[in-house]
């Protein structure tokens, strides 16, 4: 590109107001809902403190190199994902298309989760909290049966929020309240995006920092709750034997990968707005380490509160048994307490064992309650909401929690949408007459309309499909091609030169070894292992069916054929663009070299005919 057009495009390209905005945006994109509701769960099921070892190893050898790579190529090539990969090699243009497609699909279901968070947020102002008690049935004789059989929080989530259908085949109708919440979620995303990074940069001052404030408040509150220490001890007690299980390493690698939001194209887009001379190495290390530190920091209040919840459940269980015994044997009120419960039980059992066994006393075990782990939407909307109802001043905690979840998700949505908009704007696919604001609005409206499938009765099932099939294998494939593209097609030497130009020094041995060897190998192994594990088990999904005989247990049903076909399509179509574009370009190249006159030679000047005079001069 000649200097004039380069200068004009540099003028046109938006810039960050300051470095802090850029860093906060990247941190906000990386730190998302997964840090709060996936990492603590993994820590818990994989032996607490021991899980940190595979996690940190994955961060150092897979997460940081890939992060640095994306930030560096975005900053040096100064384009969105499609433009960047096209610049590196036209054969790799498909990688950018795949990233854009993927960002769009992930943005669809991610904003639905935000819509659910908004729904709970709107209801957090009610006194009492609507998920704390069962609603009364129509003729005021008792509580709704579905609620009595399960729990109030489960009923509120599955029936009053999702109004879920018994399985994915039955779609149900659009739930109008969810449509309203989805519309508000997309409106909030739009208002932050209206002027591109100008408005995003201002919005992230709040959305990226607010979650830390709330987490700190929650830590202080949670550590004073009874049973918090039980939860924390349970979380962090290391179980070293689990490190032998390869599943642990696989999950650590995938968790780091998805947590850093790599391969979406959003990070490339954000760093493309940087000035050329910016130390992206330090940025990458900073963002990666802050992301992992946030995961750890978030797991402390989560587990303190889960420990509190387990203790409350245990106490209710024991209290229920005490009440049964007191009523059956007409013992004076409050004579049996949780302290002397065991003594009383043995005494009564010895005196009248039949009566005691007829009471069907529940077996209360604190360890059982602590083992009830949950991740994802189950953690946020069922487990945590139940815990909040038992804390004094529940409305405040509920509001704080849901605003924090919304901020976390919103800053991640910025990256998703940026991964869609920047490539389209860079490719000049926007007609000249359409202002950027209108284009952004159109994309938001289109996404809203497509995401309406998640507001159906079967919406949650579709969201789980999107989450498992779109947000997993395609990302790994794209990341693998990214690293291969830079190392093989762009060349390590050229890349090191660019980095030296930007940061002032060449990448050191650690980065080069990772990029050329360890990271691609690790990615390949993770990809193959992940696909192998997925293929082994027949895809099933848990359903919520009140007519199920073992209700409230969820009936696990297999996906029917057409649904499974959609799953496979969702996994493969985004990455199909990589080979399609590569093959297309190869064919174009072949045909051009064959016919020869593909493009006219701009230097041929037919006006000049070499005549005899010049020829004779040459002879001299």
């Amino acid at each position: 590109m000649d200097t004039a057009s380069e200068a004009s495009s540099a003028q046109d390209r938006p810039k960050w107001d300051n470095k802090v905005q850029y860093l906060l945006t990247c941190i906000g994109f990386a730190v998302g809902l997964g840090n709060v509701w996936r990492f603590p769960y993994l820590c818990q099921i994989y032996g607490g403190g021991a899980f940190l070892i595979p996690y940190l190893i994955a961060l150092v050898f897979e997460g940081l190199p890939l992060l640095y790579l994306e930030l560096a190529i975005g900053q040096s090539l100064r384009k969105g994902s499609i433009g960047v990969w096209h610049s590196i090699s036209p054969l790799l243009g498909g990688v950018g298309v795949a990233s854009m497609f993927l960002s769009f699909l992930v943005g669809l279901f991610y904003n639905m989760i935000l819509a659910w968070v908004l729904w709970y947020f709107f209801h957090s102002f009610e006194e009492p909290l609507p998920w704390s008690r069962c609603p009364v049935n129509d003729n005021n004789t008792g509580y709704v049966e579905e609620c009595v059989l399960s729990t109030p929080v489960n009923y509120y989530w599955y029936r009053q929020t999702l109004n879920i259908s018994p399985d994915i085949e039955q779609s149900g109708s659009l739930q109008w309240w969810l449509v309203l919440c989805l519309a508000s979620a997309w409106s909030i995303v739009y208002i932050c995006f209206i002027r591109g990074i100008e408005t995003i940069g201002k919005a992230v001052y709040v959305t990226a920092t607010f979650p830390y404030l709330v987490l700190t408040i929650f830590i202080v509150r949670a550590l004073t709750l009874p049973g918090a220490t039980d939860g924390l001890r349970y979380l962090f007690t290391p179980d070293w034997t689990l490190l032998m299980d390869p599943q642990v390493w696989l999950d650590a690698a995938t968790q780091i990968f998805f947590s850093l939001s790599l391969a979406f194209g959003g990070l490339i887009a954000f760093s493309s707005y940087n000035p050329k001379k910016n130390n992206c190495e330090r940025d990458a290390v900073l963002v990666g380490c802050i992301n992992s530190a946030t995961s750890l920091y978030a797991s402390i209040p989560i587990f303190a509160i889960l420990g509190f919840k387990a203790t409350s459940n245990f106490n209710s269980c024991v209290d229920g048994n005490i009440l049964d015994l007191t009523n059956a044997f007409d013992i004076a009120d409050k004579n049996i307490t949780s302290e002397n419960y065991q003594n009383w039980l043995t005494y009564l059992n010895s005196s009248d064992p039949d009566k005691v066994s007829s009471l069907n006393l529940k077996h209360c075990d604190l360890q059982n309650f602590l083992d009830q782990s949950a991740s994802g939407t189950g953690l946020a909307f069922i487990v945590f909401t139940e815990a909040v109802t038992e804390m004094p001043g529940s409305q405040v905690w509920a509001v704080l929690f849901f605003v924090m979840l919304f901020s976390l998700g919103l800053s991640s949505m910025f990256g998703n949408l940026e991964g869609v908009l920047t490539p389209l704007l860079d490719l000049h696919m926007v007609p000249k007459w359409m202002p950027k604001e209108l284009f952004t609005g159109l994309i938001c409206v289109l996404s809203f309309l497509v995401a309406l499938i998640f507001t159906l009765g079967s919406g949650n099932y579709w969201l789980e499909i999107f989450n498992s099939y779109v947000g997993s294998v395609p990302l790994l494939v794209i990341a693998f091609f990214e690293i291969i593209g830079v190392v093989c097609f762009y060349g390590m030497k050229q890349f090191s030169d660019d980095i030296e130009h930007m940061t002032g020094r060449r990448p050191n041995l650690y980065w080069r070894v990772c990029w050329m060897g360890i990271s691609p190998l690790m990615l390949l192994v993770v990809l193959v292992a992940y696909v192998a594990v997925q293929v082994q088990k027949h895809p099933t999904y848990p359903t919520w069916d009140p007519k199920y005989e073992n209700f409230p247990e969820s009936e696990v049903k297999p996906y029917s054929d057409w649904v499974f076909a959609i799953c496979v399509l969702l996994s493969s179509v985004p990455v199909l663009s990589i080979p399609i574009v590569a093959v297309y370009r190869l064919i174009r190249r072949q045909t051009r070299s064959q016919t020869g006159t593909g493009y006219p030679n701009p230097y041929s000047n037919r006006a000049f005919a070499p005549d005899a005079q010049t020829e004779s001069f040459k002879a001299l």
Partner: protein
Amino acid sequence: MLTAVLLLILLPPMVAQDLCKDSTDGFKVRLSIKTALGDNAYDWNESEMFLFQSTLAFAMRRHTEQDTYNIANILVCNNTPRVSFVFVVTSPDDPTKLIPKEQVEEAVRKSKHRINSAFLLSDMTLEFIGIPPTLATPITYDTPPWLIVFGVVIGAVAVGILALLMSTVSKRRRAKNKDAGFAEEDDGRVKENGTALSSLGGKDGVYNQAFSNDDRFTQL
């Protein structure tokens, strides 16, 4: 003689006891005073039982609208330390006849709140086994509160969007006006084509000191 007198004296309570113990028209009552009141719990004694009997008589009076019910009509038995007991209600006209279960249930249901308040207890802590508590009707709002919060949020966002769009439009219009205005200024003098040279101002141009009109040395 003495036995006859004794029998006469003891018969009514014994009959009463029999009425209470054997009948199917009685209800078991269970109180959990310590659970409800904690440290402020009162002891259950004869006076409290007296109060219970009087509140129940009041409930029967209220329901049947007969002022003939008295404490003597409420028979109590099977006292346990829990505190729980069984009671039956006898008809004021005939002390040997019992009021049927359904009527007693309706009477208790109607005045449950008054009975609870007399003992500073609630539906959970003063239980009549067999009479489920009438659940409080859920509060119905004209506009559910969540819609209000939703309205506030979406209103703020809509205002924000409009404000930002307006400011972008006006910024663009001002920039366009500036360009148009600039071109209009020069139109009066000479037909400029907007080149850099025209912006230097003045028809005289700029004096280029490097070029000297002095041709002392250029004559050959």
